[in-house]
């Protein structure tokens, strides 16, 4: 169990004209690799630069997320998405607010005992429970403002356990006005996702369909991290090798966007990349990797996420010229695999 810290969960080749993006994962980084491309085409560039901005709120008291006005204007419309910032999932208390209205608190034992709201022990710690997850559906009728469970959660967060974290908040376009009242009460700053473009020269690329998915994924990660796979003889012998068979590409473009990214922005990027790959080019494939937060309490489709040796949860989408795609999904050891 400890040996197998990373599981590559799915490797599927499908042919479809529509790729559906499951919009429930909290994203921190998207990396795109375009082989045989020396500069980003203009459409792609515009999409990349138009990712929506997000807000960082310092020391947000969590009961503010239960504010009646905020609930009615933002949460019920599914327009808000938030995550606690710089809280480690295995040590501190983490908070996540999903667009579908689910508020998830991942608490350590003492905080959970003081809070006094129903929750379940974490799936990933066995025998003695040291971590608890409180998952609340704010759109449910029992959590409507004024109801008993709503009031109980509110008093718990206000008087019993005064939970305060730095919070990253993002909203769907058009919902900006709804979070202004919340922001006005707190210390906030706005940030744009950071875009990094790199042109790589003389890059050996493996033919994607012909090699083992694990090694291809490793190569992709190496390129993204800027590790050279040349394997030249020096004092340090790296084991990262470009899988065979490989072809040499003169240029490649590696773009990465980091920040709190919204699903619909990623969707737009996806469409743009599909359009790009459909046109006849030298290279027949494009890859996009979407990485989630290592410390998020939830991973895709509201499943619980944990951190054992690494909190990776990401997926890589390989798109080909002929409308087929491959999906590589990787989860850490403390994760639930989606069906």
């Amino acid at each position: 169990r400890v040996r197998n810290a990373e599981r590559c969960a799915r490797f599927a080749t499908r042919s479809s004209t529509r790729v559906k993006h499951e919009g429930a994962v909290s994203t921190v980084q998207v990396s795109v690799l375009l082989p045989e491309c020396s500069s980003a085409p203009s459409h792609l560039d515009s999409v990349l630069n138009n990712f929506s901005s997000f807000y960082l709120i310092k020391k947000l008291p969590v009961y503010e997320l239960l504010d009646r006005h905020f609930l009615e204007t933002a949460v019920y419309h599914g327009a808000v998405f938030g995550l606690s910032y710089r809280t480690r999932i295995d040590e501190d208390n983490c908070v996540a607010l999903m667009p579908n209205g689910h508020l998830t608190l991942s608490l350590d034992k003492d905080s959970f005992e003081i809070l006094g709201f129903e929750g379940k022990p974490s799936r990933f710690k066995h025998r003695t429970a040291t971590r608890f997850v409180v998952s609340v559906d704010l759109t449910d009728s029992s959590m409507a403002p004024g109801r008993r469970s709503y009031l109980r959660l509110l008093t718990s967060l206000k008087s019993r356990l005064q939970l305060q974290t730095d919070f990253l908040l993002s909203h769907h376009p058009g919902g900006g006005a709804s979070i202004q009242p919340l922001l006005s009460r707190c210390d906030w700053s706005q940030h744009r996702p950071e875009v990094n473009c790199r042109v790589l020269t003389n890059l050996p690329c493996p033919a994607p369909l012909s090699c083992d998915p694990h090694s291809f994924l490793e190569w992709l990660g190496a390129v993204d991290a800027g590790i050279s796979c040349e394997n030249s003889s020096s004092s340090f012998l790296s084991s990262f090798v470009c899988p065979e068979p490989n072809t040499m590409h003169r240029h490649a473009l590696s773009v990465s966007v980091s920040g709190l990214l919204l699903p619909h922005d990623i969707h737009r990027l996806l469409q743009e990349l599909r359009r790009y790959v459909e046109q006849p080019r030298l290279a027949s494939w494009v890859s996009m990797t979407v990485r989630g937060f290592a410390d998020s309490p939830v991973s895709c489709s509201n499943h619980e996420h944990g951190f054992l040796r690494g909190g990776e949860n990401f997926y890589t989408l390989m798109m080909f010229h002929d409308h087929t795609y491959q999906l590589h999904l990787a989860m850490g050891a403390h994760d639930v695999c989606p069906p």
Partner: protein
Amino acid sequence: LPGVIHHPLVSLQSSFKAKAFTEAFLKNSIQQPRRHDLQNMLSHKAVILGYGRPKKERRKSAKARGLNARQKRELKVFQINPEHQRYELFLPLHELWRQYIIDLCGGLKATSNPQVVQQKLLKADFHGAILTVVRSKCPSYVGTSGILVQEFKHVFKIITRDDKLKVIPKRNSVFAVEINGFVSHIYGSKFEYRASERAAKKFKLKGTIDL
């Protein structure tokens, strides 16, 4: 009638016989009183006396035996009727308890040593105290607060402000008692003794106070 023929020999004999016969007959037929039975009285008789110390009658034990648990339950002395379950009725009890604690701790000023106060509280009786559950392994108990009505070995029975009688198990909970600004946290898991037994109990720190 011719007179009785007095034959001298026959009459002599018959008067002897008649006399003896008459005496014997009378003796047999008439009851002789014991007093006249001189022969019997004068013969030696031994009378055995009993060894007699006047025996004290065992007194019934003065105190009553007491009722066993079944009888107590049948009497229902410890059950409070719903019409008596009102928070206001127990507030005087709380005042009494506060006075008791203040007297016990010798004033309870702002300068009193918390250690001393805590030691006294360990042996004190809590009936009438306002308890609040601060932490608990079961989330639904957290936050319940009320006046302690009865303390048993494993549970507290408290009455909340909404006039509800709640039974809270002592195990896996931390209770807070507040007097005059001193807040004392009681770890219920270590407190599972009857109130009467607790007064004589020496508390040792064993194991962990983690819930």
